[in-house]
């Protein structure tokens, strides 16, 4: 259960990052709302997941999901590059998250 909460926390980080992108594109009002809401929910869920999981593992997975999620959003919705290096690094993060899940119980 704590792993599911942690993954959802990472996805809300992606929501928060989308807010940053909205702000840089000039949509200040809605951008700050998405930024604040996304990160506040993300931090609450991360804190809940950390009640069970080790700090270093939870933080690393949260960061990894946030970065990979934002890259995937860019690739799918904003036509960002899908070159093989980006796909390889995304795969590394996914393998690492699955591995951490397996060795952390």
């Amino acid at each position: 259960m704590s792993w599911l909460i942690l993954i959802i926390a990472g996805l809300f980080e992606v929501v928060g990052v989308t807010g940053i992108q909205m702000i840089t594109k000039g949509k200040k009002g809605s951008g700050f709302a998405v930024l604040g809401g996304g990160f506040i929910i993300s931090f609450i869920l991360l804190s809940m997941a950390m009640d069970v999981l080790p700090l270093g593992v939870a933080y690393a997975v949260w960061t990894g999901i946030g970065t990979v999620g934002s890259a995937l959003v860019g690739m799918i919705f904003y036509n960002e590059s899908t070159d093989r290096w980006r796909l390889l690094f995304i795969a590394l993060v996914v393998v690492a998250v699955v591995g951490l899940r397996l060795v952390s119980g």
Partner: protein
Amino acid sequence: MKFQWILVVIASVFEVGWATGLKYANDFTSWTLTVIAIVVSFGLLIKAATILPTSTVYAIFVGLGTIGTVLVDIIFFNAPINVLMLAFIALLLVGVIGLKMVTGEKTSGRMPS
């Protein structure tokens, strides 16, 4: 070397601070400090990224943040971390930093573009 790189290091210290707080804060004072650390960390990171190369800033920041949280948990809280966990955390860092570096200055992460 520009002095702004110091901002990245300080931001990372506050990052480790709030992450530790999210796990271990248990009263009003420690939660207040945690929230302050979040604001300071984000503020310094965004400040540094407006001056320095964004992808390098993020790579250093996320590297220090990850290593810092693992060390704090082991040294101060006797966390049950084993060699396999460390290996997978290292692999995850390679993926995150690699993704950042090949993405270049485009935004994907907690960074303004």
